[in-house]
């Protein structure tokens, strides 16, 4: 069994309104020194098979569904 951790984040230069709103809320709550907040989505995918096959498969999953190349970068970590 392989567990792939897929991290989908916004590309540099793409606005992140959710992160900005969270930053604002944290400041309103009185947290000081918060410079920036970014939102990231993480998927944990459990699959049968070996790590080599899994890597290629997860890559394809990202391209076909999990990320939109227009705004997202993704990275895969096998556990």
């Amino acid at each position, binding site marked *: 069994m392989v567990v792939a951790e897929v991290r989908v984040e916004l590309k540099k230069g793409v*606005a*992140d309104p*959710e992160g*900005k*709103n969270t930053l604002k809320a944290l400041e309103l709550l009185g947290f000081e020194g918060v410079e920036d907040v970014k939102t990231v989505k993480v998927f944990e995918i459990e699959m049968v098979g070996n790590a080599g096959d899994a890597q290629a498969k997860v890559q394809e999953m990202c391209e076909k*569904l999990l990320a*939109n*190349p*227009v705004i997202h970068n993704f990275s895969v970590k096998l556990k």
Partner: protein
Amino acid sequence: MKISKVKVCVLRIEGTNCEEESYLAFKRLGAKPEKVHLKQLTGADVTADEKRSLSDYHMLVLPGGFSSGDYVRAGAIFAARMKSRLSKDLVDFVRAGKPVLGICNGFQILVETGLLPAMSGVMSDVPEAVLGTNDSGRFECRPTLLRKVNRGRCVFTTKIPEDKISLIPSAHAEGKLMFPIERRDRILKELYENDQVVFKYVDPEGRLAGYPWCPNGAVDNIAGICNRDGTVFGLMPHPERVFFRFTHPDWTRSPDGSGDGRAVFESVLDYASKKL
């Protein structure tokens, strides 16, 4: 083809919630719409008499809503499910000149499927655009004003005069049209050259204006685009919600007549009656 013979497939899956109004818009104009579940087209888990084929229809409508709970990204799951089983059918459908309309979530699905903006060919392998989270970071639900900027390519707006401002309500959290940053200017230029830009968010004077006139921060205030042939059209606001004048928020203070959204459905049925 007579309008009464035009079969419209209003396609839904779990989480679609604007199919009734979209269905009624076509029904009221005398066409033959049908609410069809995606399973009926893919043939999974349905009885023989529930089965349908996309090629039996003359028009495809992807209504608004929150298909599959907007999980992963708005429209992504619907798009993936359609693409996995119906890719060829969809391409054939568009190639045959049959119109496809995506409203709100339907627009997101068309973009995720690669049927819009379809800069080259009918359907791109990967999305060439995205409808991202509104700049405000919130769900924006209110009447919006749209100026028709299309010069005649889009078959869904032929009955709307150029530069006319229509009141069509918006209701979405992810409606900010974006293109890849590094290719944005070139894609925009091409869209304008091909006459693929259809509606823009404006203020009452028809000027491109910021929030709240533009609810989401879309590039160049673009609210709706079509493909190169003008037969695939997606927009964030909901024309089916202003079919009648009395669903306009200012209906008691505005002249009598039909709702501003009605012309979208009349235009495409006019196209179908002449070209299909």
